[in-house]
């Protein structure tokens, strides 16, 4: 189960990053693929890792805290970068 989750998360990350590179539209890629990476891919990988066997529960707690951190800081970063892109595009 953890193997499936980790590879699924890695696949979503790869899709997001490669589409990020290939898309020309500044607004489209700047955020869809950034938001996709933090909201979908990161929790998948972290869920997969959390199900693996760690030596103590502190490690799993640390892992989950990192996951929550990535998930929560995603939208705020996307909004700030969106405003910056809009200001920079309007001149």
């Amino acid at each position, binding site marked *: 189960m953890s193997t499936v989750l*980790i590879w699924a998360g*890695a696949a979503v990350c790869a899709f997001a990053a490669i589409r990020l590179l290939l898309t020309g539209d500044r607004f489209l890629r700047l955020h869809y693929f950034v938001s996709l990476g933090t909201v979908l891919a990161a929790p998948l990988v972290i869920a997969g890792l959390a199900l*693996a066997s760690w030596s103590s529960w502190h490690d799993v707690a640390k892992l989950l805290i990192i996951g929550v951190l990535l998930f929560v800081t995603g939208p705020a970063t996307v909004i*700030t970068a969106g405003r910056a892109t809009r*200001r920079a595009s309007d001149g």
Partner: protein
Amino acid sequence: MSPLAVALPAAFALLVSAVFPCLVTTLRGEPVDRLSGLILAGPMTTLVLLLLAAGYGRPAYLDMAFIVALLSFAGSLVFARFLGRTI
């Protein structure tokens, strides 16, 4: 702890297919185009570090991932504010 067998290949796959395109994105275009690559590189690097921690079986590497997650978030905000104001 026992190393997770799937973590090292997944970390390599992520490095090549996710972190490398993010870095290439930071090489092309106007400064504001490069911002997106920088922003995505943060969580991708965090995930690679987490997978390496699981792959080598050393929980101490998780602390690095924690710090990278925090600092990449702060750095992205700093760059976004900077680019939004002065261009």
